């Protein structure tokens, strides 16, 4: 027993050490700065936050935009959740997979996609201007709350859709029938039976969406303009533009405090959702489309859903092909040209190369550490759950907070890494690690000892058992985890923007820079780079969907 334990601590040692150095240490640095930023105990930062009308308005805006976004997302996703739970139709699996696409897209792709759709140069405005001979764009959504709400719905639609539709599919239709036999009409059945039973799932999904909207960064920074500022954006500005590190630390702590409360509430709810009262096989809960009304209802819903979720991405490609000379690939060819002739200019192609290198390192690190951690967690006789939760923590920390923590933790002795390029893939690894672990652990748990024993009694020697049982099962989980790590690294914006050195810029940073500069050429290049990032991410996601087996746990 003693020997086993030491082997276990050895397996967990590396990932835990990584977590301690690159998560808890920066976290501690933020704590230190928030309370002792100027040497002595100083609470003026917190005082300012809770008395200054400006910060109170930021807090208030952060909260209500998140609440409203969540509410609208739930309303938008409920019909599709019902359709997918109760009806059986062709193309269901594909449509379901397509809904995940927006959620997995980097913010730095989604924001340009919404600019491509609704921006002054966007496809809708151009079409309307041509159609009605207008001189100025009629749709003015940029820098307003509306485009933020739309982008948030677009982003988190699939969370509500998936969680609620799974819960709905597991709901016994017999209960509704019983209520109808007792005299309830359809609306009554929905209000008195369906809704109360679905409520835990809806609440859990809402909380998750709320957390994402509360800490949303790229969407607000790019689409919200100068006036619409959330806590996350404020932390970024205070740290990167105002260099008021103690105040930024205090803001970070306030945000961490709120998110921790939400996450705690979410995990309590989640536990209730994952234990359905009565599971029913699908052929009982699902039925084919029969009446014309049903068909119209389903088709109209699917069309709206897919149009809303896929149009921004499609339009992004269209706009990337639009140049001053009409349709063409010029925007893509221009990616390696120094159009401004500036000496400090770094070509987007260099950013692409940097991003690919960072992504490669992230994948290698996240998979290696994730495998070790997953083996450690599944083999641990005691404390497996604790380690599991520990490794999930980075997921609960916003990207800007993480980047900010790195700035203050690794810019002074004893760990002065300011010049270090590798902090970027390290930060990406930290964000990706929980997802790698999350995809590998259930797979490892699936390999119950009796699978190996069954293989042995069928004549497989121990090497053969590993090759035939362990490897193929874990392999797919590793592919899924690796793709997650790859997409996260390629698209990571919040942390990277704070810690990347200017000469090692990445694709998201280059897109952000292009968006901030005037002129059609810059706009075109931003679109081209975003479209490229989107296509690569989509290809990776497609690879992952193929590797995924069965219906795994959701979120």
């Amino acid at each position, binding site marked *: 027993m003693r020997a086993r334990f030491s082997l276990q601590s050895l397996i967990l040692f590396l990932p835990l050490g990584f977590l301690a150095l690159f998560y808890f240490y920066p976290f501690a640095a933020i704590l230190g700065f928030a309370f002792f930023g100027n040497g002595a105990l100083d609470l003026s930062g917190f005082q300012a936050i809770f008395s200054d009308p400006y910060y109170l308005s930021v807090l208030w805006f952060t909260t209500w935009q998140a609440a409203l976004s969540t509410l609208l997302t739930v309303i938008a996703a409920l019909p599709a959740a019902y359709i997918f739970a109760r009806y059986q139709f062709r193309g269901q699996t594909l449509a379901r997979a397509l809904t995940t696409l927006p959620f997995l897209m980097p913010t730095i792709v989604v924001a340009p996609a919404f600019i491509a759709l609704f921006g002054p140069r966007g496809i809708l405005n151009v079409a309307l201007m041509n159609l009605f001979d207008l001189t100025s764009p009629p749709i003015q959504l940029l820098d307003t709350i509306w485009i933020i709400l739309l982008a948030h719905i677009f982003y988190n639609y699939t969370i509500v859709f998936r969680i609620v539709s799974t819960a709905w599919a597991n709901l016994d239709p017999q209960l509704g029938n019983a209520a109808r036999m007792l005299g309830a009409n359809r609306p009554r059945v929905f209000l008195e039976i369906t809704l109360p039973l679905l409520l835990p799932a809806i609440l859990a999904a809402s909380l998750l969406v709320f957390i994402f909207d509360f800490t949303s960064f790229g969407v607000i920074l790019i689409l919200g303009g100068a006036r619409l500022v959330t806590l996350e954006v404020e932390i970024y500005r205070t740290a990167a533009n105002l260099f008021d590190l103690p105040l930024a630390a205090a803001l970070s702590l306030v945000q961490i405090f709120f998110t921790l409360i939400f996450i705690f509430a979410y995990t309590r709810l989640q536990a209730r959702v994952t234990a359905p009262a009565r599971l029913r096989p699908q052929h009982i809960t699902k039925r084919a489309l029969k009446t014309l009304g049903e068909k119209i209802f389903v088709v109209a819903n699917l069309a709206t859903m897919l149009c809303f979720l896929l149009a921004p991405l499609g339009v992004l490609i269209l706009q990337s092909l639009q140049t001053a000379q009409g349709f063409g690939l010029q925007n893509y060819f221009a990616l390696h040209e120094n159009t401004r002739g500036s000496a400090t200019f770094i070509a987007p192609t260099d950013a692409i190369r940097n991003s690919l290198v960072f992504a490669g390192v992230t994948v290698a690190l996240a998979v290696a550490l994730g495998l070790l951690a997953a083996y450690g967690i599944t083999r641990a006789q005691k404390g497996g759950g604790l380690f599991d939760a520990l490794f999930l923590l980075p997921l609960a920390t916003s990207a800007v907070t993480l980047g900010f923590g790195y700035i203050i933790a690794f810019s002074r002795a004893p760990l002065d890494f300011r010049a270090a390029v590798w902090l970027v893939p390290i930060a990406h690894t930290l964000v990706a690690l929980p997802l790698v672990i999350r995809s590998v652990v259930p797979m490892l748990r*699936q390999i*119950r000892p*009796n*699978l190996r*024993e*069954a*293989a*042995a*009694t*069928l*004549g*497989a*020697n*121990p090497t*053969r*058992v590993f090759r*035939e*049982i362990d490897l*193929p*099962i874990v392999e*797919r989980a590793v592919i899924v985890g690796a793709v997650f790590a790859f997409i996260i690294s390629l698209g990571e914006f919040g942390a990277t923007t704070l810690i990347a050195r200017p000469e090692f810029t990445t694709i998201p940073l280059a897109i952000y820079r292009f968006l901030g500069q005037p002129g059609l050429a810059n706009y075109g290049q931003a679109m081209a780079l975003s479209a490229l990032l989107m296509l690569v991410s989509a290809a990776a996601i497609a690879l992952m969907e193929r590797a995924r*087996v*069965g219906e795994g746990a959701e979120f």
Partner: protein
Amino acid sequence: MLQIQNISKNYNDAPLLRDISFDVADGEIVCLLGPSGTGKTTLLRIVAGLENADAGRVVFDGNNLKNVPPHARGFGLMFQDLALFPHKNVFENVAFGLRMQNASAHEIATRVHKTLELVGLDAAVFAKRDVNHLSGGEQQRVALARTLAPRPRFIMFDEPLGALDRLLRQELANELRALLKRLGLTALYVTHDQDEAFALADRLILLHRGKIQQSGTPLELYTQPTSAFVARFMGLNNLVEIRELETSELETGDWKLRARTEVGVFEIAKERAGKENEFVLPRPRAIERVVEHSARAENVLRGKIVGTQWRGGHQQIVVETRAGKFFFEWDGAVELNRERFFELDAREIQFIAQGEKT
């Protein structure tokens, strides 16, 4: 032929198996029967080589298997929870053992096809199916096919029908016995369900508290249980503890045993008694007459019929006595709740040992 020799195994410092020995002859189906937690599965795992015994040997065809790893034993084992490989489809699951024998692709294809048909699955329909999406019964059949396909020289079953409902279990047990006999397979089958064991076994081994309580054909165990434990396990519950025992010689020269109990005196021929006589067991068909007044001094129960029910073409009556309820088959007239004397046939009374306490 399989020989289990003096196997002992401790679990958490408590003895789980104590000095177990038995043989399984070629072509024989032996059922290990016993309540759960008695070490049946552990014994199976020791035979499979998945666990090591603390003492004793497993010998097959004269060879000690001590140093033979599980994959080299050529045994088949069907697991309680089936252990189908979730990442392989039906065909790949069934083909696994054949691939381990380096069989040719053609041979694998024909053999898998044949085995699937053998267990009652249409190969054309099922070969490509995902094992995770099969019904419980279909998964059982795939697991059986996977175990049979590599032609194991000895096959073991660990409560493979446990998850099914009673009727289906009974049906599959009959089907499985027919199949095993047709293939001439030697098998060791573990179950806690006596009906399943009766349907399957050539020979039963009743295991409890790590020891073999009794072994024999189903008929032997039912007609000649050696202990109160075995009797109860076989569904024979008419047991009365013996308080005093005496031996007497009749004028004819025969020896008789007399047992004094709470509900009267029982007397049987000495040949019908066991080595240890601690309980009286009137068998279900022991009643000769039900009368209002009896002149008999022994082999008579006093009590009232408190219930009747039909069981397999017989009327079963429940007789309440001072020492609790007795169950008999009795097709005569019944008057409920009247004090009566139940005269018993001495040839349907056994004296047996107590055995393990349940």
